[in-house]
């Protein structure tokens, strides 16, 4: 793969199972060193996408190139360069942590010695060195995830598929795993495809996100791009100490750059075109004799973006965050 080539390019990827269509005409791509988050609820098609892109499942239709290879005709070659963390850590409980890594290392073409050395070093790095020779059976979920992550990195892959890497982890372990994933992309230049339904980790890690519902891609881009696409209006929350009086609401609504003004318990919610409109909104309040105790101009966060997309996808505008045009 050339330096400028995309790591993942897929077009109109479709796959059905007897239970129904799992993925419908998915078109996405990923750049080298990027963290691409596949977001969506359970059953959205995230894991199916990961399995298709790693050549484990075959599509009904569509095309893909991953690391410059055809996942379905050059699957073995592709999988030499990818590492996968499955949702269930997938460790064999009858073996020790190191034996689990050694088996995978051997199947990846390493000598026994090399697999043990590399596995041991990674377990140390993930603070599991002291349990390397202990059977996995008694490990906590966090310990299993760390061993599984070490296994995914054993052969220094160019592309990582991480399926729900923090599910079942406590907050401290979640933070450790999120930091680790961040460093894999930022410091080591690996491309990461992150399947998750946790918006927090996606928000911290993802350069771009693909939002899936019922196998259909509903949005794809950077969180900012998606917000800009969804939010034609800018939200300003005014703390006036009391609900805004009707004359003030009328005055705010009369401003040319204001789309809508609504009275709230503590003041008013005003939707303008952009951030630069905030001073004139505040000036209007002052001019109407209303004291302004606080101004909260609010950019949409990832959660807003996600739920706005979900509301659009499910056709239920009532679930959309405030400020999203119906």
């Amino acid at each position, binding site marked *: 793969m050339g330096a400028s080539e995309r790591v993942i390019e897929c077009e109109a990827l479709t796959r059905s199972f007897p239970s129904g269509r799992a993925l419908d005409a998915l078109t996405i791509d990923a750049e080298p060193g990027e963290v691409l988050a596949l977001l969506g609820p359970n059953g959205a098609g995230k894991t199916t996408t990961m399995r298709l892109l790693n050549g484990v499942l075959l599509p009904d239709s569509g095309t893909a190139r991953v690391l410059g290879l055809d996942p379905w005709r*050059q699957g073995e*070659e592709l999988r030499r360069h990818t590492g996968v963390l499955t949702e269930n850590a997938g460790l064999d409980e009858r073996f020790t942590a190191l034996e689990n890594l050694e088996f995978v290392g051997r199947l*990846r073409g390493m000598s026994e010695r090399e697999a043990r050395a590399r596995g041991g070093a990674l377990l140390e790095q993930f603070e599991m060195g002291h349990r390397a020779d202990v059977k996995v059976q008694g490990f906590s979920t966090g310990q299993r995830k760390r061993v599984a992550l070490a296994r995914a990195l054993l052969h220094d892959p160019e592309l990582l598929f991480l399926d729900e890497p923090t599910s079942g982890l406590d907050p401290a372990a979640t933070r450790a795993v999120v930091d680790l994933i961040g460093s894999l992309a930022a410091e080591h230049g690996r491309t990461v495809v992150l399947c998750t339904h946790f918006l927090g980790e996606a928000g911290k890690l993802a350069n771009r996100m693909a939002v899936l519902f019922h196998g259909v891609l509903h949005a794809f881009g950077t969180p900012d791009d998606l917000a800009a696409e969804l939010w034609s209006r800018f939200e300003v929350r005014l703390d006036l100490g009391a609900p805004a009086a009707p004359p003030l609401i009328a005055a705010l609504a009369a401003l040319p750059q204001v789309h809508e003004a609504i009275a709230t318990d503590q003041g008013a919610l005003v939707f303008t075109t952009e951030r630069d409109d905030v001073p004139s909104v505040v000036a209007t309040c002052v001019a109407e004799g209303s004291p302004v105790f606080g101004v909260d101009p609010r950019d949409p966060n990832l959660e807003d973006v996600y739920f706005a997309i979900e509301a659009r996808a499910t056709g239920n505008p009532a679930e959309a965050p405030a400020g999203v045009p119906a």
Partner: protein
Amino acid sequence: MSARRAGAADADEHIDWGAVRSIMRRDLMAVRRSKAVVLPMLLVPLLMLVLLPASVGLAANGGGLDPTRFLEMVPSTLADPVSRYPVNEQVVILVLGYLVAPLFLIVPLMVSAVLAGDAFAGEKERKTLETILHLPVRAMDLYIGKLLVGFLPSVAVSWIGFGLFTITANLAAWPTMERAFMPTKLWTMMILWIAPGVAAVGLGVMVRVSVRVNNTQEAQQLGGAVVLPLVILAVAQTTALLLAGLWPTFLAGCVVWAVAIWLNVRGARSFTRDRMAARL
């Protein structure tokens, strides 16, 4: 044309014996560590192939067993060859030479069924299959590795069991027979030629069953329903084979192997990554 219909092919059709060995090594190590798998695999053959012949041999030495009435009830094809021996040897020849023969086909069937169930359905049950499917190992190499993990121990248990049976039978019956009467050419043919074929048939059945179910228990139950008629067939036919002679036994072995190869080739063709992943 979709990739599924086109049937995405592995570019390299050669078997990667390194991968096969790694899979076998890991699974055999796991089998050794699993009492639930090892105990029935060793105890049942020990009971059937060592304790049973020892008991019969020792009982025959006491001279209290007279098979005459029994021989009058069985078909002449079985009774005639046994009747040619002196009366005190007839019990040993009848039981150890003919009647326990089916056990040697039940043992490889049983062992291969236990191991195949663990090797294929066990991966799903332990949730380790997906990890393996994401490795750079061809489905064919995985299939061969798993198949050999079931096949080699079942043949080894049969052959070692037969060795122990031969020693036990000859020692226990020595006071009566005053010679080593086992193994005969027919027995050797059955153990070296038919028993491995039967193990391969058992594997072919169990692999196909295991791919379709979600855990070892289901595999054993469903597999048992398919393997049991084979066991009955084996029991019914084995003694007759020993009476039929060397060539018919060899030909029967050819039929068993043909069925085994057909089952396993079909199994290998249907053992695709996509099919396995779609059932996860």
